[in-house]
């Protein structure tokens, strides 16, 4: 430091610092902990069951179908993203064989999906969890299948069905999700318990007391969306066993008074299967966030009033039926024959015989044989009539005109039908 040996170094000496000796080892230890921590969280983040399952599936495919096939097995996290349902289902990260053929009898997670339900419910359009339940976001078996804390949509599979001792069909819980879209169907193929429950709703006359789908009596509560009722809102004081909404409904349906002492709901002496079916049905009645187009049995038209339907029927079968059939009525009304055009672009044809003569100076026969203007276009492209049909048209128009003259004479028509 001191370059000149002749000068006395007078700068205070600070060689007495006790800190380097004490602190350097501490800093070194912290460095090691940091590196160890980084290794730990990296390993922890990489560790997922799906890596093992993908590796195994690839090997299984290689054994059964050869290396070329095995190379087509996708690797890495997989998901089905269904924007319409807001679902990102990552189930296929492990369940890779779902759309493969040849794994029908394999053990899960490598089993091919039954083909029948997929025909009408393509996996790209419906995902997995909209039918099966479970947590589609999750990528590990436990959080995906449930039950896990804070995820109230466990996998609706055989395991949970067994826990509830479902009669006959242990896999029937899933039918609840069928009925989210099929709630207005009388019968849903494959949903036997839901179908049974719907029959019971009719037979037992549930609607005498309950509103269901905006129809029914008001003695009991409205059940239209009872499936949305929070599990905390049921009274479990008299329920033994599992404290779940499903268990509550089963017990309540079997003996209402046992759970709610002052209820007026009668005991229908339902069998266990009937009670379980009805519990599935009522829990399926939820405000489901599915597009209207996916809900079966709902009308996708704007409904007509009874008068509108009658008028349309009268038009189709009345004296002007021919004009409706050929399509003339799209532009022309024929008021005297009871035909009302939805568009009313052209003149009323009631007085066409007279009208054509005055407008074009030609007879109706002549005009139809060689039309001019708009009618030339229409009759050559949209409504192509054979000469025989044109003859019919002339005849019908003359009939209409006769009727028109008759009504004008009677004074029921104010003026000419030209508007």
């Amino acid at each position, binding site marked *: 430091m001191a*370059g000149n040996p002749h000068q006395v170094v007078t700068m205070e000496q600070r060689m*007495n610092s006790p800190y380097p000796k004490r602190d350097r080892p501490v800093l070194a230890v912290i460095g090691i902990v940091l590196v160890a921590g980084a290794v730990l*969280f990296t390993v922890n983040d990489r560790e997922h069951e799906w890596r093992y399952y993908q590796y195994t599936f690839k090997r299984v495919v290689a054994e059964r179908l050869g290396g070329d096939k095995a190379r087509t097995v996708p690797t890495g*996290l997989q998901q089905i993203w269904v924007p319409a349902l807001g679902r990102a289902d990552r189930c296929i990260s492990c369940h890779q064989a779902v759309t493969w053929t040849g794994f029908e009898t394999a053990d899960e997670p490598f089993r091919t999906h039954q083909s029948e339900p997929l025909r009408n419910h393509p996996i790209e359009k419906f995902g997995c969890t909209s039918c099966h339940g479970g947590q589609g976001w999750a990528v590990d078996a436990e959080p995906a299948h449930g039950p896990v804390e804070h995820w*109230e949509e466990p996998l609706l599979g055989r395991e949970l069905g067994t826990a509830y001792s479902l009669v006959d069909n242990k896999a029937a819980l899933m039918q609840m999700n069928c009925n989210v879209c099929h709630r207005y169907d009388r019968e849903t193929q494959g949903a036997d318990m839901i179908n049974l429950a719907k029959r019971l709703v009719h037979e037992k006359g549930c609607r005498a007391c309950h509103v269901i789908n905006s129809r029914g009596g008001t003695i009991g509560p409205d059940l239209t969306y009872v499936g949305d009722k929070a599990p905390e809102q049921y009274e479990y004081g008299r329920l033994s066993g599992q404290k779940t*909404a499903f268990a509550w409904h089963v017990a309540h349906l079997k003996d209402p008074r046992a759970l709610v002492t002052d209820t007026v709901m009668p005991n229908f002496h339902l069998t266990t299967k009937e009670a379980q079916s009805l519990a599935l049905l009522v829990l399926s009645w939820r405000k489901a966030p599915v597009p209207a187009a996916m809900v079966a049995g709902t009308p996708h038209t704007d409904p007509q009033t009874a008068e509108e339907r009658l008028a349309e029927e009268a038009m189709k079968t009345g004296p002007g039926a021919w004009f409706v059939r050929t399509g003339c009525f799209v532009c022309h009304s024929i008021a005297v024959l009871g035909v009302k055009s939805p568009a009313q672009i052209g003149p009323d044809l009631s007085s066409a015989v007279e009208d054509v003569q005055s407008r074009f100076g030609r007879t109706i026969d002549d005009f139809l044989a060689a039309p001019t203007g708009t009618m030339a276009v229409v009759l050559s492209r949209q409504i192509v009539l054979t000469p025989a049909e044109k003859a019919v048209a002339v005849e019908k128009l003359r009939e209409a005109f006769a009727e028109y003259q008759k009504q004008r004479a009677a004074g029921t028509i104010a003026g000419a039908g030209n508007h």
Partner: protein
Amino acid sequence: MVQPLPTREERAVPGLHPRRFWSLRPRSDRQSGDAIVSNFLLHWFPAKTYKPSMDWSYSFWLGTVSAALFLLLVLSGGPLLFLYVPSVERAYGSVKDIEFAVTFGSWIRSVHRVAAHLMVVAVFLHLVRVFLTGAYKNGVGQGQRRVWNWTIGVAMLLVTLLLSFTGYLLPWDQLAYWAVTVGTNIASSIPFVGPTVRELLIGGRTIDQPTLIRFYVLHVLLLPGALGALFVYHMWRVRKDGGLARADSVAIVSERLRTVPVRSKTYTLLGVARGTAPTVRTATLEAPDLTVNSVPDLTRRISIVALGTVAIISLAAVYVRSPLEEAANALVTPNPAKAPWYFLWLQEIVTDTTVHLGSFTINGAFLGGVLLPGLLVGLLTAWPWLDRSPMTAAGTWLPRSRRAQNAVFLAIAALVILLTLLGTFCRGPYWHFYWPWQPWPEIPTRL
């Protein structure tokens, strides 16, 4: 002495060291001086630090821990900014994605959450330390404004709480939704303006998209910016006030010891080393056997504390998973609905002061949620002006002359901590008392 011509690299930017990642090998006095002048750390820290200020057991380095946590929160918040979507429809899903699908997502979120909770603790303990050592008191230095820095510190504690509270809502799960419901309902108990204040806070009458975007902007932009600005000023004031209060107390003691004056000041930076410049002799502030060079002794210790904090959080985040409850549902109130833990002492007071007289209910929200915390914050801010203890009481733990006020402070702090623990661990459904080992009634599920 022939000096080599400076290279182009060395001439590059005046005031900024040409090599940003330098290790000091100066070739001239000029270069040595520049190295010091352009060193950011030396503008933040003094050249020399009192040894007693370095003690682990004096400050417990809680301010440094808080600053390290803040830095870590900013760093871990960065990636979350890219992943989180502040919309009612997608917030919950985006957090699920961070948890399940994003590489390191779950760990980053846990780092952010653990650091946030610990920061509330660290800032609170820092405040306790400063109070108990009377470190807000001015000492012998000129122009000291320690009292002002204490006020800034109280403000920083409040901003820290607000940061934590606004972050609480963002996952848009039941925990978030109802914690914020409880928190903002307390605000509405202020007489006359309460409902308006609540409406302003949440952007409407119910907690919805306007609330989410308000809390989001506060959380990621305004509050961190405010805290950063306050922090910079806080640090600068510490420097201007002559370091920790303990330095003053040591200076007072050492003056009594009549230390032999030494050369410690110079008018050219390294002149004193060469003995070529006039020096100033001083017995006080830079006594050689009482101080060490800040670089590297202080900076090394700061590294230990900051990196140690990072290491602990990094490890903790692997094991402490961040909870994500059901998606927010305005129709289902979880039982019990609890405010964030650092507000639970207030919720406890609110519940305890809510009196039922027959069919009448006197709500304790105003007393417990507004009046009492307002009073405490006011008292905390004003305390340095009420404190009449002598200057020598500054910078020492629990001095005799401040016994009474320390006792009062400790009693209040203990009560707050006790009520917080009570609210966190001993309150179950309907705010009934449960021992931590007592099971709560089973929470029913759908299936």
